[in-house]
């Protein structure tokens, strides 16, 4: 295979799962219980290729030795497959827009007119490979593979077995395309495609009314976010005159700067700030909020737990919900030009983290606890992205990676519990399961420790980096020693960025939020969330796995009576063990070597001067680590006081929280508020529309239809069935004609 170039490999990553999905659909009936084979082969192939690509990309990133010996070179590779759409002379930029500002000398010389006068509209189907994409692809395909293996045990015997694997493979395809696409329109297409897969998997058991409702809710809530993305894409086109991420070369040999291309990245004034820039960023944030279940669009994710647990683990915990994180990280330079929008990202993230964690503390459904935990952890990532610093962006992706490991582990563990307990997931109905499900209990504990942020498990390191990023914004002076080093190296660049920030651009009202006080508040909120996270995680662990052993009546174990084992079969425990090892090791490995941060900083988007200039030396923040660990310890201790060794159906939480319990248990009344503000008015409108349709529009049509009926009714009376009358009518007619003819011929 001589043409196994990175471009070919990159195309293989989405292609293999797609082929797998198609074969699963076509051969599903024939294969029956072996229907997972094509899908799993496709995903496994994609995972292998993704790891190869990760290694290939890592080779291209300049080594990190020396105190920033050389500025990090952006690494990207574009594979253009074909041109989807192409129109000439589609765009003329308004004067003064960044599209008009960025122009190459070659352009002006070749054209004999100012560049950016008029340009075509073209949508190349181009895939890109850069550190961010390689990281995302690896996460998606590897977690996808583990979930597929797990599902062969979990979904065994389900009548929709082939359909499930076809959808999972389809999802892996869509998600890989989403993170590999190098064009905003393609991103939009696959943004919708993953939403469709999510919808189909939430509603997998569509005969169950709750599942069908949850699927519909997820789809509709996501529409709000998708609307934001659509408007953002329109605005990007209007502002930048292209939708490509990368630079392209026009047929005339002119470089067309892409939105995230290196031409524009190198230009300090390449990105729109002010009202338009902020609007784009806020709309992108809205899109991210929808897909990543952030306030105020988080309401769909807890309900999405009606889907099969492996789908929840893959889509609603590890991968699809991180699409919003990916989008914001990918658009880092756009956000960096709008400090107000960045602050909004953090505010949304930290608020969501806190609110979701509070709701999570009182949930009794194991999967719901994990769902709120997912929302909360995604909030963490958004809070981190919003700092706008290189540390913030890399920390968010770092947390995304560790979260994918431990949250997939926790979800698959919850699925293992649910599988063994005969479909029961209410934590009050079982307890003390560590004796009957040792592997699940041990791996779940590892996942819980990672989620709670206990050293040295994965979550500890990524959470520490996020807290450090927030802390640096809240207390800039405390970090000045780091900044001095960087300022010396990149002083002129920073000055240029600063000048453009303050001078050339209009300040937006939102920018006023970007103050240290705001960031301090966000930091304390995140720290409080860390404590709450540890609390609800260990509350779930203690309720499920400690105390007197109880199993619901529907569960059926195996082994001798009195010593029954409820442990799940090997295809389910194997992924648990793999993920547990990853959750335990990956954080420490990546943090100690700083490999991921360095690798990600070669992503073109993160080499924008406004982002790259905020780089700080890699450091372990002992003070923050102590604070974070303290918060986690408090949470675990409180959970232990309430639940360790007790029956899980006790009223401890109600007594402990009092009236707040009602507030949290009702999820801050979000569903009720939306029902009153959106759902009911829309239902009323739909009712009015239905009535108008039925009675006014249909009524008009029916009225017109009644005219011939009425006219016929008059003539119908002559149809007596008596031949003589018919003959008489004929004779009268002939006589009339004869008389008329005679009248004519008379003259």
């Amino acid at each position, binding site marked *: 295979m001589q043409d196994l170039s990175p471009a070919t490999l990159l195309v293989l990553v989405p292609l293999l799962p797609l082929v797998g999905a198609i074969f699963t659909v076509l051969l599903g009936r024939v294969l029956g219980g072996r229907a997972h084979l094509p899908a799993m082969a496709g995903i496994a192939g994609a995972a292998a290729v993704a790891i190869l690509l990760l290694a290939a990309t890592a080779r291209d990133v300049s080594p990190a030795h020396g105190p920033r010996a050389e500025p990090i070179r952006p690494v990207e590779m574009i594979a253009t497959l074909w041109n989807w759409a192409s129109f000439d002379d589609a765009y003329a930029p308004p004067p003064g827009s960044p599209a008009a500002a960025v122009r190459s000398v070659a352009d002006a010389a070749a054209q004999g007119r100012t560049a950016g006068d008029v340009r075509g509209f073209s949508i190349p189907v181009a895939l890109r490979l850069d550190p961010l994409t390689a990281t995302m692809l690896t996460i998606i395909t590897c977690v996808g593979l583990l979930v597929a293996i797990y599902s062969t045990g979990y979904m065994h015997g389900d009548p929709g077995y082939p359909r499930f694997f076809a959808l999972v493979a389809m999802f892996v395809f869509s998600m890989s395309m989403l993170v590999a696409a190098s064009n905003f329109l393609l991103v939009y297409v696959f943004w919708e495609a993953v939403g469709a897969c999510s919808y189909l998997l939430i509603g997998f058991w569509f005969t169950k009314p709750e599942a069908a409702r949850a699927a519909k809710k997820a789809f509709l809530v996501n529409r709000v976010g998708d609307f934001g993305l659509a408007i953002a894409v329109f605005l990007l086109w209007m502002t930048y005159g292209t939708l490509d991420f990368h630079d392209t070369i026009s047929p005339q040999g002119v470089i067309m700067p892409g939105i995230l291309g290196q031409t524009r990245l190198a230009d300090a004034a390449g990105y729109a700030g002010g009202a338009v820039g902020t609007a784009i960023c806020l709309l992108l944030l809205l899109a991210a909020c929808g897909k990543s279940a952030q306030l105020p669009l988080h309401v769909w994710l807890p309900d999405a737990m009606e889907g099969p647990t492996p789908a929840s683990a893959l889509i609603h915990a590890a991968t699809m919900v991180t699409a919003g994180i990916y989008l914001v990280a990918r658009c880092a330079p756009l956000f960096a030009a709008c400090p107000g929008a960045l602050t909004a990202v953090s505010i949304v993230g930290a608020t969501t983290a806190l609110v979701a964690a509070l709701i999570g503390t009182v949930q009794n459904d194991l999967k719901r606890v994990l769902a709120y935990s997912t929302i909360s952890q995604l909030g963490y990532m958004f809070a981190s992205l919003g700092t706008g610093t290189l540390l913030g962006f890399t920390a968010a992706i770092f947390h995304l990676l560790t979260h994918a490991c431990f949250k997939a582990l926790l979800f698959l563990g919850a699925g293992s519990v649910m599988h063994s307990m005969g479909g029961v997931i209410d934590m009050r109905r079982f307890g003390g399961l560590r004796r009957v499900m040792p592997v699940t209990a041990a791996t779940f504990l590892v996942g819980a420790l990672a989620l709670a942020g206990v050293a040295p498990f994965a979550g500890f390191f990524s959470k520490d980096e996020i807290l450090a990023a927030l802390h640096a914004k809240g207390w800039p002076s405390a970090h000045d020693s780091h900044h001095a080093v960087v300022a010396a190296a990149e002083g002129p660049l920073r000055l240029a960025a600063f000048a453009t920030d303050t001078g050339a651009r209009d300040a937006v009202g939102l920018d006023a939020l970007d103050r240290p006080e705001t960031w301090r508040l966000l930091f304390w909120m995140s720290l409080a969330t860390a404590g709450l996270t540890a609390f609800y995680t260990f509350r779930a662990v203690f309720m499920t796995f400690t105390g007197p052993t109880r199993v619901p009546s529907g569960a059926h174990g195996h082994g001798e009576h009195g010593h029954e084992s409820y442990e799940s079969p090997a295809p389910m425990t194997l992924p648990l063990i793999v993920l547990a090892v990853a959750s335990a090791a990956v954080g420490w490995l990546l943090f100690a070597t700083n490999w991921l941060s360095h690798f990600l900083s070669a992503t073109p988007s993160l080499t924008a001067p406004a982002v790259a200039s905020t780089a700080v030396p890699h450091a372990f923040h002992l003070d923050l680590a102590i604070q974070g660990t303290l918060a986690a310890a408090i949470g675990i201790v409180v959970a232990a006081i309430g639940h360790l060794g007790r029956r899980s159906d006790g009223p401890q939480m109600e007594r402990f929280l009092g009236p707040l319990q009602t507030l949290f248990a009702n999820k801050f009344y979000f569903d009720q508020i939306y029902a009153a503000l959106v759902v009911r008015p829309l239902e009323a409108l739909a009712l009015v529309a239905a009535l108008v349709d039925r009675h006014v529009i249909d009524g008009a049509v029916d009225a017109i239809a009644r005219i011939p009926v009425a006219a016929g009714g008059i003539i119908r009376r002559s149809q007596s069935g008596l*031949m003589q009358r018919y003959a008489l009518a004929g004779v009268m007619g002939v006589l009339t004609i004869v008389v008329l003819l005679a009248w004519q011929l008379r003259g």
Partner: protein
Amino acid sequence: MNSPQSLAMLQNALTVGAILFSLGLVGILTRRNLIVMFLAAEMMLQGISVSLVAWSRHHGDWGGHVLVIFVLTVAACEAAVALVFVLQAFSRTGRLDAAAWQSLREATVGRTVDRGLPAADAAPPPFPTLTQAGVLPAPNEDEPLQREHV
């Protein structure tokens, strides 16, 4: 004698034709017996045929004659077909009354009921009887009832 081509001959023949046609027309419009209606239609046909022959003679060519022969042929065929229909209709309803088929009217239109039937129709007059000869035929119970109103 008037020559065959004279106007007087034409007028006479046309008058006869018109009378035949009108009689047939009146017959069709007033009689309900299917066979009589059919006879009336034939009479109209013959009225037309007489007119054709008259005109043909008046003009001294054969066109009208040829057409009349053709009409006769068609009328013979038509008679065969029509009588089959009449027989079938009779065997279905047991009556030759065209009004027996008025159920083919529009569903919303009411049934037409005969009023003021002649008293003779209500009770058939005694038919003259001949002296019996030969063997008395076995009486058919249904037949008199069926033929009652013919």
